């Protein structure tokens, strides 16, 4: 059977624009959340977010590094983030100079939950104010979700499967799981897999605020607003960015002497069949996804050392925790579980990919990132290590990443150290 390993990583997040910066900031317990700077929020209910920082910031993002000037002008930021993160992953994997034969067997699976909302908003205003004759000719292909995968394939000449998942906040996890299956199924030897999002714009913030999904009570204390499992949590903080990993068939990676971070050993998917935004109150769908992933991985509850929770800092956190307990045991069989959304916010379609990369790095460095702001743990959290406040050194051989999305879509991915 073909095995799938991770050989390259790329990140653009509110905590930095390269893997080592993001990871060291995350482990140090820093927060990427702050007041929204990109537009006037005076009439918005939610005024904070995890923005990707500008170039001149200590850990800012420089789009000129990997994204052509013309492409930057034509596309929405989620595509810019995806191209850069994919470029980082390719460089990390040492795949900058692939032969034509390799490129025919290398594909892309980078999705997004929402896509080009900022551009849809601004061009709608152009349409209303100046008429159809002023709408940009790049409007459509600069906003489409699958142009993440399209742009990456064009830039790097990748002619394998070109796929793009759209499953709201499970997008990143599904993208990685689906891409791993494509390699297992012999559709490709290499897949760039991940997710990207950028909807920190007026209609994006207003829409989620109207759906009562966002934190609106801590606008004056942004770094403390995302507080998964804490009694004071009351909505997620929006983040943005992208995470992309290089997935590669194991023998292919070994043959070229690639650095191997971890193996993708399990992938589970399910639907809640319950409500458009609320999770099933018993977390049945989450449980099904985790159980499927464990079964595929041939692992038991005691084999998981770290769970990167979906944990959005909403009421749903304890529903997820109850489901995790049913799968792993009341004490999670000794596993640690944290929500890194406490530090970077919720990257929506990018979240699952970024968090999968955190699982891979936890396995690499034998350290688990913290859940920030967990001052007053909610009922049901007793006896569970939610890694409050500070990162923790510990054995991490296998890590599970959970992602759940609007519409009741669930995905779990398990990564394991390669011996």
């Amino acid at each position, binding site marked *: 059977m073909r095995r799938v390993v991770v050989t390259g990583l790329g990140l653009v997040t509110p905590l930095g624009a390269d893997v080592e910066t993001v990871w060291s900031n995350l482990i140090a317990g820093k927060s990427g959340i702050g007041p929204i700077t990109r537009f006037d929020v005076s009439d918005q209910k939610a005024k904070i977010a995890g923005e990707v920082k500008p170039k001149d910031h200590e850990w800012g993002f420089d789009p000129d590094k990997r994204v*052509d*000037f*013309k492409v930057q*002008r034509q596309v929405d930021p989620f595509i810019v983030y995806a191209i850069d993160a994919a470029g980082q992953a390719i460089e990390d994997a040492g795949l900058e100079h692939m032969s034509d034969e390799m490129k025919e067997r290398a594909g892309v699976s980078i999705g997004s939950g929402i896509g080009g909302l900022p551009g849809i908003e601004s061009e709608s205003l152009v349409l209303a104010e100046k008429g159809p*004759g*002023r709408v*940009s*000719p*790049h409007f459509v292909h600069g906003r489409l979700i699958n142009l993440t995968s399209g742009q990456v394939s064009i830039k790097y000449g990748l002619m394998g499967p070109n796929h793009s998942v759209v499953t709201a906040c499970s997008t990143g996890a599904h993208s990685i799981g689906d891409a791993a299956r494509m390699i297992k199924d012999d559709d490709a030897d290499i897949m760039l897999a991940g997710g990207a999002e950028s909807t920190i714009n007026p209609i994006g913030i207003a829409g989620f605020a109207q759906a009562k999904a966002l934190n609106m009570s801590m606008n004056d204390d942004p770094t403390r607003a995302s507080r998964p499992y804490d009694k004071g949590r009351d909505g997620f903080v929006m983040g943005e960015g992208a995470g992309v990993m290089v997935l590669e068939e194991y023998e292919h990676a070994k043959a070229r002497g690639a650095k191997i971070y971890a193996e993708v050993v399990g992938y589970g998917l399910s639907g809640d069949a319950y409500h458009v935004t609320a999770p099933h109150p018993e977390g049945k769908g989450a449980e099904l996804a985790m159980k499927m992933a464990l079964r595929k991985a041939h692992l038991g509850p005691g084999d998981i050392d770290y769970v990167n929770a979906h944990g959005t800092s909403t009421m749903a956190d304890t529903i997820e925790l109850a489901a995790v307990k049913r799968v792993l045991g009341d004490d999670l069989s000794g596993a640690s579980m944290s929500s890194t959304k406490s530090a970077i916010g919720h990257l929506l379609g990018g979240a699952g990919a970024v968090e999968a990369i955190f699982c891979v790095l936890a396995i690499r460095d034998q350290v688990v990132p913290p859940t920030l702001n967990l001052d007053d743990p909610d009922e049901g959290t007793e006896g569970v290590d939610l890694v409050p406040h500070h990162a923790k050194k510990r054995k991490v051989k296998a890590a599970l990443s959970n992602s759940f999305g609007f519409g009741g879509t669930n995905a779990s991915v398990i990564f394991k150290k390669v011996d």
Partner: protein
Amino acid sequence: MSDTADRVQKIVVEHLGVEADKVTQEASFIDDLGADSLDIVELVMAFEEEFGVEIPDDAAEKIATVGDATKYIEEHKG
């Protein structure tokens, strides 16, 4: 360079991200400046905005060089 040529050059530089000295009046948008057909649609829109002229599709299709654009604008601006 005329005022119109100056402003045309500036728009082309901004939209295509090319060096200003490459944007000569003889330069072809597609062959010399790396534009595609959609870039030309966008440039024509920018010229219309900047100069308050209307460049109909059949006229836009004949604009191949920077000089063609400058000439059309000079002849049609109010």
